[in-house]
């Protein structure tokens, strides 16, 4: 008896510990390849998200018209929703199991009773299918198709004038940056000043890189803007002076990090890391 009690307690403890962790887990799996044909560049239009909007519009259209007692349009939207839902279910074979045509038809039938309560109740069964797919795939789809891939961007290194991949370019910027900070820390101010020229040149090249995607000046300036100019001017001034002031030097380094590197990393790094994971070859 004691044995079974202890076993029960152990199992309960393990489940209690594990379950909350599992409830917050998310697997960010690369979307199926068959989805790619519904997004640029394979498709001229972003057909998948257009399809999502169609279904959403018809689903919403049912309730809007039920409230307005426009029953003719309720029926139209209900029929169109089933039609689009069926069409969507055939677009990505790997996701066929998310769809429940019966639930869609049940909802449409309920909507056509023109009873908003019945429609609401039936919408749950349909809504669950949408919710499940979104919960499991929306993050991946956004990461894959709604963010640019930095790995496709090549940058012409202003120092070597050779074109290199973006990741390698980040490595180059990082080493140039270390050339400045390490030499300053060692009191080698002339070397730090020379390294600063190289670092600044590479950092400013990012403005051109931003232009590959961003059309507006304000967005570029958010990443490489007047604060970066101020920081570089301050660093240069210190390194050219007779006795560089460490306080001012490190303050400008901090300014550069906060308003330059951090802005871009905060916005782009997460998705870039996800894409990077997907691009790694599978381990055998």
């Amino acid at each position: 008896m004691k044995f079974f009690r202890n076993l029960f307690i152990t199992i309960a403890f393990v489940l209690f510990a594990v379950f909350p962790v599992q409830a917050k887990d998310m697997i960010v799996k690369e979307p199926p390849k068959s989805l790619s044909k519904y997004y640029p560049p394979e498709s001229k239009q972003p057909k998948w998200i257009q399809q999502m909007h169609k279904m959403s519009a018809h689903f919403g259209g049912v309730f809007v018209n039920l409230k307005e007692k426009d029953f003719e349009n309720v029926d139209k939207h209900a029929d169109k929703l089933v039609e689009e839902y069926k069409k969507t279910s055939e677009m990505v074979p790997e996701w066929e199991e998310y769809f429940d045509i019966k639930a869609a038809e049940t909802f449409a039938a309920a909507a056509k009773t023109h009873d908003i309560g019945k429609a609401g109740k039936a919408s749950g069964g349909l809504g669950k299918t949408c919710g499940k797919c979104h919960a499991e795939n929306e993050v991946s789809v956004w990461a894959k198709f709604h963010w640019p891939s930095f790995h496709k961007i090549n940058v012409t290194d202003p120092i070597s004038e050779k074109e290199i991949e973006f990741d390698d370019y980040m490595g180059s910027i990082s080493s140039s940056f270390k050339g400045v900070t390490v030499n300053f820390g060692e009191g080698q101010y002339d070397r730090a000043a020379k390294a600063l020229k190289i670092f600044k040149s590479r950092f400013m090249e990012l403005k051109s890189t931003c232009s590959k995607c961003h059309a507006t000046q304000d967005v570029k300036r958010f990443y490489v803007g007047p604060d970066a100019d101020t920081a570089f001017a301050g660093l240069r001034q210190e390194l050219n002076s007779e006795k560089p002031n460490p306080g001012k030097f490190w303050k400008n380094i901090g300014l550069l990090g906060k308003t330059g590197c951090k802005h871009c990393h905060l916005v782009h790094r997460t998705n870039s890391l996800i894409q990077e994971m997907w691009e790694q070859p599978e381990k055998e």
Partner: protein
Amino acid sequence: MKRSSRIFDLVVGAGLVAISGISILYFLINERFEWIPDIALELARDPEILKRPAAKKCSECHKDIFEAWKKSRHSISWTSETFIEVSENRSKEKCLPCHIPQSVQGEKPSPRMELRDEGIYCVSCHFIDNKMHGPYDLLAPPHPTFRNPDYVRSDFCGSCHQKTLKEWKATQVEDTCQDCHMPRKKGRLTQKAGLNLLHKKRWLGDHRFLHGKITEKDVILETSWEEKFFNISLTNQTIPHFVPTADNGDPRLYLYIKFFNEAGEEVDSAKEIIAPQQETALPYNKKINYRYRLFDPVEKATVELKYQPAWSKEKTQILAKTVSR
């Protein structure tokens, strides 16, 4: 004698009638085409032209303009390899309105779906409200043509070249975009046999949309020495917009400086990238200064300025100078 005299009279008479007829026709076509009844004009209309045809259709009459346009970068705005690469196989939406415009009318156009390979072509600029527009009111039998003064104003080009237009406006220089990039010369609008002689010569803009060369007369270089510094200044003296200029492309000027000691050995070097995307392009008539700290003893410096257009990796030299202390 009487018979030959009669024949002679007939020939002269017929000749006079023909010359008069042609003169009247020439006058009507070029000066008073509104006197020609619409019913007569309808007979000459080519309905295909008003269906937004490819440029080849326009070349049936406007052969010279077509040939010039074929040499321009406008004609390859969709098919250019650089564009395809930089736009990630044309998937970047921000590029589409200007690279495949539906209709250019003074503000950013919408992109079009049909005839994309034509790039920025005849219809994009000249076809508005189901009519052909241009700098002249013309009798053009195949299609009605109406004068729009915008065609000789910079604002028209600024529909797409918005940043460059702003830069130009700030200079308050009177020369328009068209004055420099579509220089005019007298010529015939149409080369179609017969019609070309009936139309008088007019001032025609060069549809190659010339890029223009940057030379050392356009960018003035000045240098000076201090004990521990070398100073350079560049002034864009003649070009009434930033140099280089672009809304989204990445043309660049590269300024290369090399420093040599007394023994002629290179001891240091510096480089500036002067580019619109880096906000370092040279504004009109303003001196831009660069200052270089000399870490080692320097007796001589060489300065070179090179230009690289947005669509090429090749650089062309604009100026080169050696300066000694």
